[in-house]
């Protein structure tokens, strides 16, 4: 997995609440058997018109946000399906950090497995960052995972919380499966105990 340490980049504002996984990556693009190449279809139905042309009003089609690496979004981002295609598409587009007041549980976990940092902040601070993001390409935010701090384009800093284990994995680009396999003895023990206590499983 790619490491996430410190990111300085353009933030795109998406104040809409309940941005769901069907908006992030519509199901027609779930038929792939690969993880890559989905960035071109990120937010497909909002980003492109019915004839396939770009919708110039959509934030990521605006010249100042085409290279956005941070997304500031409304409440409950990523609700809906478990499809990891959603974070795959976000990552493939080039976005590595999403900031909102809340995230859907499965999407939130999926981000961490793909080197994306989802940050939860109170409404007031999301509003501040949304305003900052609306300034466009001149407004570059900095997200420092080690320090757990966001710096706005004006130099103001906003601290954020992150689970210590998830932070450790992101900072070091660690593979979960490898880490769990180091605990194989514990799993073996659980399985043999369980075979006695719950043999029907």
């Amino acid at each position, binding site marked *: 997995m790619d490491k996430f340490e410190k990111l300085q980049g353009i933030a795109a504002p998406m*104040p*809409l*609440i*309940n941005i*769901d996984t*069907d*908006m992030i990556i*519509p*199901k*027609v693009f*779930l*038929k*792939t*058997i*690969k*993880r890559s190449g989905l960035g071109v279809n990120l937010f497909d*139905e909002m980003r492109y018109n*019915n004839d396939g042309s770009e919708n110039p009003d959509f934030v990521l089609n605006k010249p100042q946000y085409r290279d956005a690496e941070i997304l500031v979004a*409304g*409440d*409950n981002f990523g*609700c*809906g*399906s*478990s*499809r*990891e295609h959603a*974070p795959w598409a976000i990552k493939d587009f080039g976005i590595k950090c999403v900031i909102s007041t*809340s*995230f*859907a*549980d*499965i999407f939130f*976990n*999926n981000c961490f*497995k*793909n080197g994306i940092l989802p940050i939860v902040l109170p409404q007031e601070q999301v509003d501040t960052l949304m305003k900052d993001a609306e300034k466009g390409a001149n407004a570059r935010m900095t997200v420092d995972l080690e320090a757990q701090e966001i710096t706005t384009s004006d130099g103001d800093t906003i601290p954020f919380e992150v*689970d*210590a*284990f998830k932070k450790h994995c992101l900072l070091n680009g660690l593979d*979960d*499966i490898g*880490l*769990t*396999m180091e*605990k*194989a003895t*514990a*799993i073996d*023990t*659980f*399985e043999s105990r*369980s075979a006695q206590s*719950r*043999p*029907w*499983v």
Partner: protein
Amino acid sequence: MSPKTLYDKIWDAHVAHQAEDGTCLLYIDRHLVHEVTSPQAFEGLRMAGRKVRAPEKTIAVPDHNVPTTEGREDPAQMTEESRIQVQALDKNARDFGIHYYPVSDIRQGIVHIVGPEQGWTLPGMTVVCGDSHTATHGAFGALAHGIGTSEVEHVLATQTLIQKKSKNMKVEITGKLNPGVTAKDITLAVIGKTGTAGGTGYVIEYCGEAIRDLSMEGRMTVCNMAIEGGARAGLIAPDQKTFDYVQGRPHAPKGAQWEAALAWWKTLYSDDDAHWDKVVTIKGEDIAPVVTWGTSPEDVLPITATVPNPEDFTGGKVEAARRSIEYMGLTPGQKLSDIEIDTVFIGSCTNGRIEDLRAAAAILKGKKIKDGIRAMVVPGSGLVRAQAEEEGIADIFKEAGFEWRLAGCSMCLAMNPDQLQPGERCAATSNRNFEGRQGRGGRTHLLSPAMAAAAAITGKLTDVRELM
């Protein structure tokens, strides 16, 4: 011993390892797999030279992509991409030695209907699947939730998940339901009250007389949509109805093992003085037959209501409601029962079980759907379909003018050929009304099977109580 919730009890029975910061390795008893979210996970195993740790606890079935029309065993019926995904699952199931129900097997169907039907899902288990509607299995008092593809790979390789415990939320539905009100109305009414993020960070236990009165099918409908309320999982404590449903199923325990299992299952309930982080109570008698008007499952109102005005909301919901109403082609103040529909879809892991088909057929019996309406019923599994045919329900649907399809996810998420056209309006028994969910530009109103049948007859959203 301190009092525990049902969730606490199941959690404690499955912790294989706990780190100092509370991060746990939770052991997984059943891993269900389908063709859309698994190919990259199996590919990951191959690249790392890893095996499936517990193939005997891993069950696969193709459901999302499969056509629901006759002759679908012929791969030419699928688009090339769908065919590649289904064939990848065929190969992965064979290569890794996991249980498999191919398209040609009568037991094939939607993964969340097949699991319980075959007795794979049992009380007190942990059940995961790369699909958010895994919450369905919580109806058995199993801790069941959706996972992403990286976690699918993690479970395949280690039979565990890295988890932190969620908070406990109790949703109590007291008293009796009025006639015409179903499990679907309960689960939508709860989301209408709590919002789609109201359950975030929680595992919900549904309880109360109205929940106890539901059949297992109804309980599965309620738990299925726990995820639409943002919860990690929904649970219902197992009782005699649960045990009766499970007993005798192909993979349920038998003999002495059944007795041992039953003894443990009977301890699976929340203790009287257990701690709840959040409690929501709704009177059963206050729940009406409901429909959704917008593009989020929280946009739910009784069928007797009118389309809301965006200005009635606060915060970000004002703009979201405005966008929804425009997308849905509605007008604030319009009566919901005046909304004309083009299509009716009965099926999905929410409402594709035998009882759902019976409820719709009871309304349709001896009637015809309105001219010009496209109506389809997609049973949740081959076995549900066969049972409906045996009970004469299939004939009622066909005589009313419904298409009688083969099992699959179908138009719930429209990954197969069953899709809405732009602007087409559908009364659907499925679980999501998101923009584009049933096809680009398609408009979805969620409702119960009986309400869907009523809409098919009149050609508009209809209060089913008028047809009872």
